[in-house]
């Protein structure tokens, strides 16, 4: 009964005119940036954040979540029509989606990805609704050592899953943690590494750094080679999949929903890994694996369902434990904190309106996306025709404005540009930005948990508590596993799939 009254409370909040409008705006912007290659949900949430300062927290979170899962919907359009992923979680959709479009089946490909996304998203929200309160109740028993171990696992997973040698990921994670030490130490109040700068006293802002690493760096990378986008279909017809398409896609959609949801709960998995897993599983169990890569509808349905299911799934750890499982969630965590709300085990008890309101808005947002996407495909195709040399100055302007509007401080813009150049160079040298940003967000919490754990007086505390010991052992295993031949080969296989996808 309690559950249904909570859900009713949520819908009461989500269905107000104001929240409906901002949910609509969020999913619309999300789809737009999903469609546009060169700007992803991380940079967009970062630059929209300052515009939400005047809003109520629940309205702001509803809109920003809409941007996040809306981007998963939009990403497929570019993958299918242009063979360029609109955002990272749609990389694998290019494999079969583009081939379907080449065979004149762009319509069913777009249709099945919209329906699959809707089903995956909705099933995943049910999972989020049921699992988060349970996990939050369990997490109330956690102390600093458990939280430290969980954060360490998240960082280890992101490091393990990034491309290139694990060592490079590790170096980036360490650098992110080091940058998170800039500013005032939360326990002793000592000011560290600020070079007497007032701007740095509050620490390195997550938002300008994220905009630099994922917005400006992306622009600089794309500027090197402006690729002319050849759109395959000027007009897409026959969006509704046939009965055969449905029967071929039904099980991939169901499996994609489960894989997307459960894999994304793992710290560090994010939305990209589940899409590759869903695709690989379908290919492996298919009676016709040879059809994959040549335009099999299952190869579109499974990953597109999985990325939407993962968008909701990755919110489980954020809302129940306060720990972001991916870079996108890390930025959303920043949004919660800026609005004075600390996500974690007490979030559901302290802010039921926010928790249930956000969940209800996700149901509504998913329906909006389904209704919105199919008729607007023509508009997205028109937007895709905007040449990049006009698009990138706009991205730069929005990033500039976003960084400045945070604190009306021009040095935040400078920080953004510095990290933009840093991010660009790191890409050139094949270092990934994800472990860096996640470490920067988790850094202060990780340091606090680490120091509070040691204050118990036992330096072996991390190995004396069963949950902590298991989590730390798994983290260490992930980080040293590339040294062993079997695991290093497995990792190389993942990397190969990622590269083929691109």
């Amino acid at each position, binding site marked *: 009964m309690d559950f249904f009254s909570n859900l009713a409370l949520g819908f009461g909040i989500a269905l107000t005119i104001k929240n409906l409008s901002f949910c609509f705006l969020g999913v619309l912007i999300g789809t737009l940036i999903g469609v546009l290659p060169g700007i992803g949900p991380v940079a967009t949430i970062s630059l929209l954040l300052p515009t939400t300062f005047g809003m109520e927290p629940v309205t702001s979170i509803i809109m920003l979540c809409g941007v996040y899962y809306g981007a998963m919907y939009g990403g497929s359009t570019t993958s299918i029509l242009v063979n360029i992923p609109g955002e990272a979680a749609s990389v694998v959709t290019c494999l079969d989606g583009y081939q379907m479009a080449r065979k004149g089946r762009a319509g069913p490909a777009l249709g099945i990805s919209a329906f699959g996304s809707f089903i995956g998203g909705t099933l995943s929200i049910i999972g989020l609704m049921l699992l988060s309160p349970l996990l939050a109740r369990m997490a109330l028993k956690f102390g600093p050592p458990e939280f430290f171990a969980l954060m360490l696992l998240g960082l280890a997973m992101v490091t393990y899953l990034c491309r290139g040698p694990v060592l490079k990921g590790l170096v980036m994670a360490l650098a992110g943690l080091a940058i998170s*030490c800039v500013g005032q130490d939360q326990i002793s109040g000592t000011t560290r590494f600020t070079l007497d700068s007032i701007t740095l006293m509050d620490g390195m802002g997550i938002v300008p750094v994220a905009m630099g690493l994922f917005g400006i760096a992306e622009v600089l990378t794309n500027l*090197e080679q402006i690729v002319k986008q050849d759109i395959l279909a000027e007009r897409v017809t026959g969006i509704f999949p046939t009965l055969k398409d449905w029967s071929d896609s039904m099980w991939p959609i169901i499996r994609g929903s489960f894989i997307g949801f459960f894999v994304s709960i793992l710290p560090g998995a994010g939305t990209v890994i589940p899409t590759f897993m869903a695709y690989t599983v379908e290919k492996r169990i298919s009676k016709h694996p040879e059809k994959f890569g040549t335009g099999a509808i299952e190869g579109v349905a499974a990953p597109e369902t999985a990325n939407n299911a993962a968008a909701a799934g990755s919110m489980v750890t954020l809302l129940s434990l306060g720990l972001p499982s991916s870079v996108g969630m890390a930025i959303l965590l920043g949004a919660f904190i800026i609005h004075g709300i600390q996500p974690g085990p007490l979030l559901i008890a302290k802010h039921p309106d926010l928790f249930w309101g956000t969940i209800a808005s996700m149901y509504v947002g998913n329906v909006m996306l389904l209704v919105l996407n199919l008729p607007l495909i023509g508009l997205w195709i028109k937007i895709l025709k905007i040449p990049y040399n*006009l698009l990138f100055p706009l991205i730069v302007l929005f990033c500039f404005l976003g960084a400045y509007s945070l604190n009306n401080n021009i040095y935040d813009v400078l920080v953004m540009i510095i990290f933009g150049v840093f991010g660009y160079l790191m890409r*050139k040298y094949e270092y990934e930005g994800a472990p860096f940003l996640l470490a920067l967000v988790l850094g202060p919490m990780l340091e606090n948990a680490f*120091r509070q754990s*040691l204050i118990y007086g036992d330096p072996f505390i991390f190995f004396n508590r069963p949950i902590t010991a298991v989590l730390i052992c798994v983290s260490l295993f992930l980080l040293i596993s590339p040294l062993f031949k079997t695991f290093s080969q497995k990792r190389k296989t993942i990397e190969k799939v990622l590269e083929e996808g691109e």
Partner: protein
Amino acid sequence: MRRREITSSLFWMFIGLILTIWSLTYPLGSLAQPGSGFLPLGLGILLLIFSAVLLMRALRQTAPTEEKVRMLPARWVNLALTVIVLVVAVFLFEKVGYLLIFFAIALVLPLLAGQITFRRSLIFAVLSAVGVYVIFVWLLKQPLPTGFLER
């Protein structure tokens, strides 16, 4: 490939070294009561170790490995100019005001990217500056510096 790996690992070694030395200027505390320099020191040492391993690996590479090496950008001058334009814009933003700065950014950046005429770029710049005014100043009421255009 090898040269890039050496350069990047040396960069991280340098950062690790600075972090280690700088951390020593803060109280380290003890294992039971870590001070504010404790974690940064550990991070600095780990960064030094891992970058040294990366360096050793790079030095051990004899021939250039896979030839998927992305060379330094041929358009690096344009990239450098883009960054310079942005940095100059940062320093002039509050003095000159958002309208002129955004106009200038929107005018210069497409020209740097190439494949666009000055006229089209000019139209784009005017539209961008007006767009920023309408969306951010007029609708969202964002306080942006007006610089010397302030009456």
